[in-house]
């Protein structure tokens, strides 16, 4: 069965919460209906290749979804300037998202643009009555993003900043450690707890290590340079362990972007 993957989406809303980020709400009933947390979309700009962005949230009733954009180069600059009414070609939803089934507590650990797809995880938790704990790391309070939204959506939040001007001083790993310590101190049942990490490689590696130490499951969302976004060009690979222990190249775009932390070779 052949199904559509390329949608022309209208920009419904453009928000600029701070200097560094723009949030676009885009119309596509199909993508909104199908998208799962951790999946991404691949967006056309004035550049040659598409640009991948994690899906930040969906509004299935309105048939819209949102992405958060940090301006890094020409492509993101172009996209950050789109205005309501503009149309943009988007492939989506793409990739393997987080496997959230069977968990009753989900801790999201995000840094930088990694917080965007994790907000979708928290949105999902709220809908599904899963206990969501959001840990976010930022450079500084000024560069922080979605703090209000996380606070409203998750059951508990912990915001860290490198600059030391938020609740926790330091990186997201420190905040995550505190959350884990707290769970252990309060004798919480962590057998059905999952840590979802997305952000800088080092942060995800730390999250994976802390999770392992505490015996908590952990899934990480990897980022790699992409061309097609749909699995046909093999450029976006990361190294993963097969069941038999051998190393293979998996494609971030279709085999991921979310992988079980156990299989990732950092």
């Amino acid at each position, binding site marked *: 069965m*052949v199904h559509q993957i390329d949608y022309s989406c209208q920009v419904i809303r453009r928000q600029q919460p701070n200097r560094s980020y723009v949030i676009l709400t885009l119309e596509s009933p199909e993508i909104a209906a199908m998208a799962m947390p951790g999946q991404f979309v691949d967006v056309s700009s004035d550049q*040659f290749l598409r640009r991948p962005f994690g899906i930040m949230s969906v509004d299935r009733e309105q048939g819209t979804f949102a992405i958060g954009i940090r301006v890094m180069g020409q492509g993101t600059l172009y996209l950050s300037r789109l205005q309501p009414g503009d149309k943009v070609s988007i492939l989506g939803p793409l990739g393997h998202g987080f496997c959230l089934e069977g968990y009753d507590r989900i801790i999201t650990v995000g840094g930088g643009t990694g917080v965007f797809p994790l907000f979708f995880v928290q949105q999902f938790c709220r809908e599904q009555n899963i206990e969501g704990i959001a840990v976010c790391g930022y450079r500084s309070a000024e560069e922080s993003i979605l703090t209000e939204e996380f606070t409203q959506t998750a059951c508990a939040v912990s915001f860290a900043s490198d600059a030391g001007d938020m609740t926790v001083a330091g990186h997201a790993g420190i905040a995550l450690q505190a959350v884990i310590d707290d769970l252990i101190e309060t004798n919480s049942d962590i057998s059905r707890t999952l840590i979802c990490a997305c952000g800088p490689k080092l942060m995800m590696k730390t999250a994976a290590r802390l999770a392992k130490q505490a015996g908590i499951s952990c899934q990480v969302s990897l980022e790699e340079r992409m*061309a097609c976004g749909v*699995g*046909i060009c093999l*450029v976006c*690979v990361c190294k993963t362990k097969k069941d038999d222990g051998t190393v293979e190249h998996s494609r971030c775009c279709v085999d991921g972007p979310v992988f079980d932390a156990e299989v990732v070779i950092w």
Partner: protein
Amino acid sequence: MVDMTVQIGSLKLNNPVIAASGTFGFEREIEQYMDLSKLGGISSKGLTIKPRSGNDAPRVAECPQGMLNSVGLQNPGIEYFIENELPHMLTYGCAVIANIAGHEFEEYGEMAKLLEDTAVDAIELNLSCPNVSGGCMAFGSDAYMIRSVVSSVKKVSSKPLWVKLTPNVTSISEMAIAAEEAGADAVSLINTLLGLVIDIDSRRPIMKNNTGGLSGPAVRPVAVRMVNEVYNAVSIPVIGMGGIMTGRDAAEMMIAGASAVQVGTANLVKPTACIDIIRELESWTANTGAAGVSEITGTIVKW
């Protein structure tokens, strides 16, 4: 109604648009998005004797109207392909071409032998991959080596044999003539142009392999020129590729001398590109009044 079929030697294609090697995965993904029976053909990902895990990432660098790739022939090996991928590919209803790349001279013959008993429609000898050390591209930039590889494969294979040429040479027609003389049934060109993109802040090449192969619209004028040069130099069919994004681009390549075209990078920008290109090419051909698309080939009118 325009007749969209084209004949490449003994092989008849539904239409002249073939998905280029390495840009269509192993079709498991792409078959979800389009009806592959509509294609002229599919050239498989480059196959090697042994499975290859390819180069480390990053394997792609964007550049103006194009991209570099340095996949490095990641593939599960030809035997796995024959057992697990080919049977499924053959159900699509378009021609299936096995693109093979040898590291050693002998490997081409070995792989051709393995393909002999399959229903694959043609073999494309990749003498032009710029992303693996030794072999391959080195073979393709030396007319003597081309002659040897092609005739050795011809000896063990009865399949239509296409020879894929690299543009990184002084005279591509010299290479095409060598392939023709050694018994090639067609030549396909161009593979990618060797390029390098550096991140100036870290002073590191964007790609782990340092260099990579340039493809996409940026190379189209070079590809069209080479296709025309080769078309004038050989009498076997020429399969043209390099930067084709639209039906008009496909028409340009055919006017320059291509009997069929391959579409690579366009698939990565738009997964259904091939289908769109076929539709556009068909309606363009109809507008010219031609009865069949094959009439376009080589109709360039030089000044």
